[in-house]
């Protein structure tokens, strides 16, 4: 039951600021851009970025949404895990917009694959980019890579990367744990 801290609060803060600046570099005033947090854990990260972009970097308005991918997953009826849905909250059309997906950990890439299908229900985006806090290298099942990444982590399959947020889990930190039941 080992548990190793990969990032502390200060490091996360620096990374979030960097990611926010990189977004501004590519998206300017965000008029043609929508930012979509993937349920459940990507939403915390997207809310943090929203807060930073509004307060520190003085961006006036960004369309933020939440996307649940449960009904688009490719492991339905393939195992014992029951898939429970979360709320999708996208009250705008993504037609011709630049979409940025936000998720906490990029692992196999299957969630992102599902999200790529799911977003089509809301129109045809001009482009889609991916922002993740943690990129687990060498573990991809699909040819999907992040456009913006906080930190790259090399972890073996038995290990698990856990991102905790102060508003939900009591502290800002990223841990590597060994307790995954394979």
């Amino acid at each position, binding site marked *: 039951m080992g548990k190793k801290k990969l990032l502390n609060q200060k490091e996360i803060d620096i990374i979030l600021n960097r990611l926010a600046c990189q977004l501004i570099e590519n998206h300017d005033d965000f008029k043609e851009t929508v930012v979509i947090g993937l349920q459940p854990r990507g939403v915390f990260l997207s809310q943090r970025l929203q807060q930073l972009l509004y307060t520190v970097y003085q961006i006036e308005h960004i369309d933020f949404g939440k996307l*649940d991918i*449960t*009904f*688009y997953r490719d492991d*339905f*009826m*393939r*195992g*014992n895990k*029951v*898939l*429970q*849905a*979360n*709320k*999708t909250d996208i009250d705008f*059309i993504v037609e011709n917009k630049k979409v940025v997906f936000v998720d906490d950990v990029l692992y196999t890439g299957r969630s992102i694959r599902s999200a790529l*299908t*799911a977003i*089509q*229900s*809301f*129109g045809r985006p001009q482009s889609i980019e991916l922002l993740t806090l943690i990129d687990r290298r060498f573990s991809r099942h699909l040819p999907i890579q992040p456009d913006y990444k906080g930190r790259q982590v090399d972890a073996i399959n038995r290990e698990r990367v856990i991102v905790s947020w102060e508003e939900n889990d009591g502290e800002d930190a990223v841990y590597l744990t060994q307790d995954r039941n394979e």
Partner: protein
Amino acid sequence: MSELSVNHLLGIKHISAADIQLIFETADHFKEVINRPIRKVPSLRDVTIANLFFENSTRTRLSFELAEKRLSADVVNFSASSSSVNKGETLIDTVNNILAMKVDMVVMRHPNPGAGVFLSKHVDASIVNAGDGTHEHPTQALLDTYSIREKLGEVKGKKIVIVGDILHSRVALSNIFCLQKLGAEVKVCGPNTLIPQHIKSLGVEVEHNLDQALQWCDVANMLRVQNERMSTRYFPSTREYVAQFGLDKQRLEQINKSIVIMHPGPINRGVEISSDIADSHHAIILNQVENGVAIRMAILYLLASKLKHYSAETL
């Protein structure tokens, strides 16, 4: 809880309050899905569902078919009038022949009470009861209760009166089970001849005066008089039935509070409910129809997740 306790939806009697809550929560998500620009999800992409209707239906059949198609399932339809049932084939044979063509789920409406339960014991597919005779109509009860929850916030503690032909109504029985499981109080109201003899054993009170029932309730669910199931006359005339048990504007104005009016359809306008009430803001009849698709998507999705097509052994 994230899984249904049953593998079939045969009746509300067989499921728990937690099952009902899970169906409602899942339906919330599907209601959002069917209001998107593109109202379709790929969840049931490789699931085949047969809709077997041994009895007439428009709304329920359409609602199930839409729910199945919005989940991307493959759908085959069957109606008794155009089938070999007329040539003397038994129910089990009919269904087994359909299942031999690799069908995963069966949605069935049948004139005989218990047809779904019988089938679930003899065939290897997930069965959804879409109405079995005068017994149960679980999906209707779930969408009715879901509509009450949507309109009033919660079901617990609410007072619901079911008015009309209780004797021939599978909607009434399923509604009673569903509402009671969620903690609502239920009364039935109608002529003595159309109230089942032992209904009180279900913990339901009987009221024969519609005005008093309306004064008591938060929600009135108006049922249709099912002439097609009546072999004898149960009341002297339609005019007398309307005078005593028909809901109209005048009657509604007499009570000094706002109540929610429901109807499972099809409506006999001018009999159990007048047109001005059916089309008024008190009525949530069309909300019920919209919610029907979301509820049926939730049920099919939750039952399909128990099929487990691709376990390690089968691959």
